[in-house]
Each structure stands twice: as structure tokens, then as C-alpha cells.
């Protein structure tokens, strides 16, 4: 009865005939939104904070880190020089393990890049506004990770000058005028990774334009004409016009829209490198989703590894709040759980598929000569992320940072386990072998962390580490209806 009375009252209210007094007091429930910029910071605070990082004198810690990173990077330079001068034999490959650390490192670095694109593209389409604080740095991470990744397949060619022009990788006819085999996933990979690198750079650059314009104006005002000129050159004369914003926002949305299928396709194609072959342990249909989940998992590990120190050094707690860290931890947890599920499912199918080679490959992974690698992989990738269920752990920044390192280590070992254990025990026992990396390989790989760090340090020194315009757009001050009569 009361329900009918309420409906009648509602109908009256809607018809404007008679409104019960109570309705004037009733307000629809407002769900509190997560605060993305804490302490109600103003537009100019954001500008000062982010530009201040670039405008301040170069801090001592930066020079120390840069020197160390450059030294480590020199290992890669030396390793690669030695390889080109001598031959691919300086790496530890031999029959039957003709692919080893090079492809492990390639997949590892490419995977790390994927979180950057997830944050910039997929979270943009899903309107996850917390992405704004971390997307610039994460996209930078993507680009630098692709640079590190590309080193390995290019140098595995040995005579690298053949990679491009006479067309071992890119479609230029080679000496015999034979073209690439476009049926091969390795050739697909060339296109996938080079497209990925290019589109990531474009996406990053288009996001930078409004911020470069701010720096142009600020350096001009403070009398740094050369810097103003250089930032201005790349800012393309941006002036904050809303007619420009309109096209810009549309273009940005399209770039997010095409980057989303791109990032999914890149790691799918990377996984095809293995899944399309016949090697037991590789020839499985679960590889594409499993690789994509693993890539995002490892990438978020790296995002946390990079962002938490930045947050502490530059006191960015108002911009990277606990809510942001929670979100990143939860994505790590979700993708880590998917990876754990994939490990279990691989074992299940190896048994359920009743293929003796496949069954052996998996028993061998867990209990064979490389059991230690498998153990590291499972403990880092399956157990570590489960700790992120707990709010107390997520709130402990130092602990989150350590766990993120475990994720990085675990994901490197995942690729090692997949690639090396499968090749070391293929169909013919007479060709079985054991792989150990050579000293050149070890230095080349660890040097890539130096290459990555050098690039990232240059980025935080010279470019705005957060997209100022996007950060402003998620603050209440950017809402044109704030405090108004709410007719939107």
C-alpha cells in the first residue's frame, strides 16, 4: 500500500502537479569519488611542481645515478661491439639451445613496455582517471624498454648491417632478390615490434605537446632563450586553444583506441614465435593470453619499481596517492593471478592432452636440471602478487617496492624457463644439452639495465614526468559545473 502511495507521489512530482514536502529534502545518494590530486592542489601548484623538477639545478643524486647507469650501459656497448667484431658465437648458444638469453631478454623487455601502453591506452578508454599521474613516465618506460628489447634480435643477426638494408628483417630484397617469408611469426614480430615502438613514440609525443608549451613559456619568461627555443620547437606553437583541444582530444582518443589492439597483438605475436613451432612446451594455444597477462604483470612491476622512488625523491605524494598505489598493486595482483592460472593450466593440459612429449616437458620444467629457475619463477610470480590482497602491505611503500623487484625477477625467469627448458630437452635425447650463458651475454644483458636507466634519467631531467594538462583536467577546478546549479 505504502509503495503505491510513493509511486503516486512520485508521479505527481514528475508531472509537476503536486510535490510532497519530503522530496525537497531528499537528495540522490552521491558516491564519493576517489581523490586523484590530494590536498585540493590548484592548477598553478601542479605546474610549479612538475616544471620545478626540470627547472631546478641538477641534483647531486642525479649525477651519481647517471654516472653509475652510464657505466653499466657501457657493458652492453662493449658486449655488442665484441659480438659484431667476432661473431654470434661469443654468446652461449649451441645445439639444441639456439635461442637463449637473447630471446629471453627480448621478451622480458618488450613485456615491461606493455604496462605503459596499458596505462596510456586501455585505461584511457576505460576512463580510469588515476592513470594521469603515471602515464607519462610509464609511456617513457615503454619506449626505453622497446629500445632495450630491440637490441637483442637485431644483434642476434650478427652482421647487423644486414638487418635493415639488404633485408634480413625489413622487406628490402636481399642479394638473391628473395623476399622475407611473410608466413613466419618472426617476420610478423618485426612489424609488430617496430609498429609498437613507433606508435608508442607518437602517442608519447602528442601527449607531451601541451606540457612542452608550458616549459617554452616558462623558460622564455626566465630568460633561458635557448631552452625556450628547443622546447618551443617541439611544442609546435601550442597555445591552449580550445579549437585545438577539440581535435587533439579526438586524436588522442583514436591513438588510445588503436594502441589497445596494438599492445594486445604485439605480445600475441611474440608468443606466436613459440606457439607456432612444434617444440613441446611451446606448441600451445594458451600462449597469447598467457603472454599478454604476463607482460602487463611484469610491466606493472617495473612501473612500481620506477614510480615509488620518484614519488619519494620528488615528494609527489599528492599526485601519486595511496589510491594510485592500490590500483597498481591490484592490477599486479590480477595479472599475477592470471599468470599463476596459466601455469596451472599448462600442467593440466600437459597431463590431460596425453601427449608423452608434452607431459615430459612439463615434468622436466619443474623437476629437471632447471628446477631452480622454475622455483624462482613460481615463488616470484605466483606467491608474491598474492600479498597485494592485504591493505597493510599495499600501504607499506618500501615493501611494495621490494615485491615489485621480485615480480621483475620472476618474469625474467618465466621466459628463461619457457625458452631454455623446452629447447634443452626436445624430441631426440641424443641432441639434449645444457645451456649456460657466456660472460659476454651476461654483461650485455645487465648492461641493458644501464641503457634503460640512462634514458629514464634523461627523461626525468628534461621532460615533465607527469602530464600537467591531464592532471589539471582531473581536479575539481577543471569542472565547468563545479559549484554551479548542476545542470549537466
Amino acid at each position, binding site marked *: 500500500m505504502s509503495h503505491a502511495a510513493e509511486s503516486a507521489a512520485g508521479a505527481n512530482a514528475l508531472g509537476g502537479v503536486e510535490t510532497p514536502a519530503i522530496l525537497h529534502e531528499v537528495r540522490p545518494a552521491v558516491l564519493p569519488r576517489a581523490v586523484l590530486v590530494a590536498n585540493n592542489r590548484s592548477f598553478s601548484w601542479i605546474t610549479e611542481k612538475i616544471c620545478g623538477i626540470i627547472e631546478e639545478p641538477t641534483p647531486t643524486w642525479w649525477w651519481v645515478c647517471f654516472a653509475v647507469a652510464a657505466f653499466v650501459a657501457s657493458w652492453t656497448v662493449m658486449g655488442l661491439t665484441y659480438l659484431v667484431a667476432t661473431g654470434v658465437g661469443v654468446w652461449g648458444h649451441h645445439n639444441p639451445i639456439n635461442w637463449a638469453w637473447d630471446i629471453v631478454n627480448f621478451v622480458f623487455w618488450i613485456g615491461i613496455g606493455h604496462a605503459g601502453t596499458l596505462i596510456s591506452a586501455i585505461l584511457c578508454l576505460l576512463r580510469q582517471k588515476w592513470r594521469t599521474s603515471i602515464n607519462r613516465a610509464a609511456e617513457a618506460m615503454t619506449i626505453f624498454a622497446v629500445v632495450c628489447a630491440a637490441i637483442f634480435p637485431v644483434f642476434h643477426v650478427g652482421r647487423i648491417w644486414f638487418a635493415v638494408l639488404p633485408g634480413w628483417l625489413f622487406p628490402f630484397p636481399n642479394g638473391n632478390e628473395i*623476399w622475407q617469408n611473410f608466413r613466419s*611469426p618472426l617476420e610478423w614480430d618485426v612489424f609488430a615490434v617496430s609498429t609498437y615502438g613507433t606508435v608508442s613514440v607518437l602517442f608519447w609525443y602528442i601527449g607531451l605537446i601541451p606540457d612542452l608549451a608550458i616549459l617554452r613559456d616558462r623558460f622564455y619568461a626566465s630568460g633561458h632563450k635557448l631552452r625556450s627555443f628547443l622546447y618551443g620547437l617541439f611544442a609546435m606553437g601550442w*597555445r*591552449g586553444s580550445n579549437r*585545438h583541444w577539440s*581535435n587533439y582530444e579526438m586524436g588522442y582518443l583514436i591513438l588510445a583506441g588503436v594502441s589497445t589492439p596494438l599492445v594486445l597483438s604485439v605480445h600475441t605475436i611474440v608468443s606466436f614465435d613459440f606457439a607456432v613451432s612444434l617444440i613441446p612446451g611451446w606448441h600451445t594455444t594458451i600462449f597469447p593470453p598467457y603472454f599478454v597477462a604476463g607482460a602487463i604483470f611484469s610491466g606493472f612491476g617495473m612501473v612500481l619499481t620506477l614510480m615509488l622512488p620518484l614519488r619519494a625523491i620528488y615528494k609527489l605524494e599528492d599526485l601519486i596517492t595511496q589510491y594510485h598505489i592500490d590500483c597498481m598493486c591490484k592490477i599486479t595482483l590480477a595479472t599475477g593471478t592470471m599468470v599463476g592460472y596459466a601455469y596451472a593450466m599448462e600442467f593440466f593440459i600437459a597431463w590431460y592432452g596425453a601427449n608423452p612429449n608434452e607431459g615430459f616437458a612439463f615434468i622436466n620444467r619443474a623437476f629437471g636440471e632447471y628446477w631452480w629457475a622454475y622455483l624462482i619463477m613460481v615463488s616470484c610470480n605466483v606467491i608474491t602478487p598474492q600479498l597485494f590482497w592485504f591493505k597493510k602491505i599495499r600501504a607499506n611503500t618500501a615493501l611494495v617496492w621490494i615485491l615489485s623487484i621480485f615480480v621483475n625477477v620472476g618474469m625474467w625467469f618465466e621466459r628463461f624457463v619457457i625458452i631454455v627448458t623446452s629447447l634443452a630437452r626436445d624430441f631426440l635425447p641424443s641432441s639434449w644439452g645444457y645451456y649456460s650463458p657466456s660472460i659476454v651475454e651476461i654483461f650485455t644483458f645487465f648492461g641493458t639495465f644501464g641503457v634503460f636507466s640512462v634514458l629514464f634519467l634523461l627523461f626525468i631531467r628534461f621532460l615533465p614526468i607527469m602530464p600537467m594538462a591531464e592532471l589539471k583536467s582531473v581536479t575539481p577546478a577543471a*569542472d*565547468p559545473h563545479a559549484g554551479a546549479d548542476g545542470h549537466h
Partner: protein
Amino acid sequence: MSAQPYGLIATFDTASSLYHAAEQVRDAGYRRWDCITPCPVHGLDTAMGLKRSIVPRISLCGGITGFCTGMTLIWWTGAVAYPLTVGGKPLFSPMFAFPISYELTILFTAFATIFGIFVTNGLPMHYHPVLKYEHITRGLDDQFFVVIEASDPKYDRTATRALLEKAGGRNITELEP
């Protein structure tokens, strides 16, 4: 100041006041005018009466070109320039050509989109009268501006200034060309 200025610029302190001012300038029938904002303001396109951006059409052209490039490249190299049977498979099939065509679709779409953004915005344009305004830095920092160009047919030095004043603009200044 020269006889014909570039236009009038007015300052607004909040996104909300800019939004309502934009509605008034739009309703007054101006065509050649603009808002300067530090970040995209939700709904301002409608308040300014802007049409939907044409960037997506340029992107679509890029995407179609990319897909056709991939298919043509693989068909021509494999079935025309140097026919080579691999594993007894047909010389061309859209199936194995798909992944590369897919990647090139995305690559060309991205380039077309960037091209589209620059072309529709008339950028790069390193010189612009608005950039000479002494407080323009604030337009990328924390303030909002409305600029009405003198070339607008409805532009009138006093009437336009009065409109901007009525809309709540302050610091109304003539811009040099």
C-alpha cells in the same frame, strides 16, 4: 597600437565562468573566436558551438591505406616479384598476410591521426598574436581566456568589449596583430 588589432582578449578565473562566457559569445553569433584553456574543459566544445572534429576521418583513411599496403606488399613480393613456394602453401593467402596488415593498419592510422591533429589545428605555427599577450603564460598554467578576433564580421570595438565585460571577463585587452 596599430589601427586594426588582432582582437580582444579577456581573462576568466574559473572553468565555470569561462564556460558561461563561451555560451554567451556563441549565442551572440561570433564565428572567429577562441577559448584558451590550460586543460581540456568538459563540455566546452558544446558551449562554443564547435562541430565534431574531422580527425577520425583522416585516421580512417590512414587505416585503410595501411591495411591495403600490407596486403599488397605481401601479395606482390610473394606471388609476383619472386614467386617461391614455401612448405607447399599457396603463394598468397589473406590469412598469413593478416598479422602484418593488421600492424600496418595501426601504424598508418597513428601517423594519419598525428597528421590530422596538426593539419586541423594549423600547427606548427610558432608565431601567433595570442602568444604575444603578456599574460598568455597563465593560459597554459591556471587561467582561462576568451579571444574574439577583429576579423569577425560581428566584431565591434565597443560592443565586443561590452559583451566580454557582461560575461564576467576582466583585464580586457586589445591584441596586437
